[in-house]
């Protein structure tokens, strides 16, 4: 049994008394060093979950336990030491005037000694492959590079969990690829739980587990492969099914016996060229 790290117990949340519930009776668990993807269409409550985990919002009902501590106004600063977060807009989370100042910001807030800061800045910039940009100003960086710096800034404070709240939504395909690659490298190297929040099914492929949100409820909790198999239902709750999954579906309908639910082009290709030898 893996160690529980984040636990939502019957959490309900709304932005105001008169407003509808954004989350209603949501419960789930996230374990140590696990990669979980939370997916849902706009307004499904997925971003609210991220803000609840970081104490930027508090639930009206239910409890959120992070590493044994309940998130309340008193414990919020302890919680934030363990939960790092990267937001959607690359520009609006860049605080420093240069890359090194921005990476230092979180450490400065926590009173990390200067020598330690310099050491960690070097270390985390290497981890996101931005070590050549130490003194670069934000307006000279691409969106993808800025997001990598945002990830580095979070890693510098050594959190136990990294939340990416639609961190790739505003990037071009290249930037998106950069971020996903950086993230999977970090997941492999460090002992850190990873929560990626997205509306793009293509991005959940690498995760170990997927939580599908719909209208403030947990709609499904399964592996990416199991989720991909429910194409029609996914489409009904407003998610775009990736091309590979649609293609695989059509092939099956035409009596091609694919043994596996392919997650990406490579897997589908593998299935297809070995198909004949299996028959």
């Amino acid at each position, binding site marked *: 049994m893996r160690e529980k790290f984040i636990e939502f117990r019957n959490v309900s949340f709304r932005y105001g008394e008169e407003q509808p519930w954004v989350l209603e009776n949501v419960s789930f668990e996230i374990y140590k060093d696990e990669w979980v993807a939370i997916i849902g269409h706009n307004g499904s409550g997925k971003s609210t979950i991220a803000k609840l985990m970081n104490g930027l919002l508090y639930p009206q009902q239910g409890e959120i336990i992070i590493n044994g501590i309940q998130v309340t106004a008193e414990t919020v600063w302890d919680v934030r030491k363990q939960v790092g977060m990267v937001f959607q807009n690359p520009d*609006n989370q860049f605080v420093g005037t240069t890359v090194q100042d921005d990476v230092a910001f979180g450490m400065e807030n926590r*009173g990390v000694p200067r020598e330690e800061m310099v050491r960690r*800045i070097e270390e985390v910039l290497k981890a996101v492959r931005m070590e050549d940009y130490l003194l670069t100003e934000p307006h000279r960086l691409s969106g993808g590079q800025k997001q990598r710096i945002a990830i580095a800034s979070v890693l510098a404070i050594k959190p136990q969990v990294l939340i990416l709240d639609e961190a790739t939504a505003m990037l071009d395909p290249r930037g998106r690829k950069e971020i996903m690659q950086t993230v999977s490298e970090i997941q492999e190297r460090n002992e850190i739980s990873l929560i990626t929040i997205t509306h793009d099914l293509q991005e959940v492929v690498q995760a170990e587990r997927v939580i599908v949100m719909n209208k403030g409820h947990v709609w499904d909790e399964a592996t990416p492969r199991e989720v991909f198999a429910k194409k029609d239902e996914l489409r009904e709750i407003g998610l775009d099914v990736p091309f590979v999954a649609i293609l695989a579906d059509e092939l099956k309908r035409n009596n091609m016996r694919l043994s596996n639910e392919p997650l990406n082009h490579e897997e589908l290709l593998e299935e297809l060229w070995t198909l004949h030898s299996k028959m």
Partner: protein
Amino acid sequence: MNSMMIIGQYVPGNSLVHRLDPRMKITIIFLFVIVVFFANNLASYSILTAFAIITTFITRIPLRFILKGLTPIWFLIVFTFVLHLIVTKEGTVLVEILGFKIYSGALIQGLAISLRFFLLILITSLLTLTTTPIEITDAIEDMLHGLKKIKFPVHELALMMSISLRFIPTLLQETDKISKAQASRGVDFRTGPIKERIKAIVPLLVPLFVSAFKRAEELAMAMEARGYQGGEGRTKLRQLKIKSSDLIVLLFFLAIVVGLFLTRSY
């Protein structure tokens, strides 16, 4: 446009003046501004002028940058000079033009006051030419440190300044984007009577303000998520250190001040 964007007047370089501690630069300039008013004869003015010119020379900043910084005040210098020529009536009459008598005292005083002006502007513009805005911010934060005792928000002020500096290029890029978007919808920023052109700025400013406020809100949230709780218990990555070269420069400057007080007439 982005690669060339330089905030303020800063001209990158690696001269002695560039490397000087920004606090030291501000202190010296502050003293210089006071001391300039004590000069009252040829020798004392010569010392100050020599100091200013040698300092300018050491910075190795191309002359055109310095002159560009001085353009707005040429008028003021010339105006002061002319005013003195007309108003002051001391010494002997030098020439008489169209009934106006120009006195020798007026000429000397006019020259002295204009020179004083020129030196003040030259030295203060050297500060912004050789120091990055962020260094100036750091220096101000450090120098105002004592004011924290009377609850003056020194840290907050410095943070505000540094965040503004960081967002200037971002907002400029945004302005550019919005003005292109509005131009593509038919807003004309460049031609037509002044009144129309001023009106055309409204569809530029409104989206800019809306997005600036949205940015501010998101930035505040991101800062909080990264553990920002105000200035208490914070450490700093950027640190200012007084080097021995800073002290030597200060001593050199003090020697000049002493020289000035020895040569000025009482």
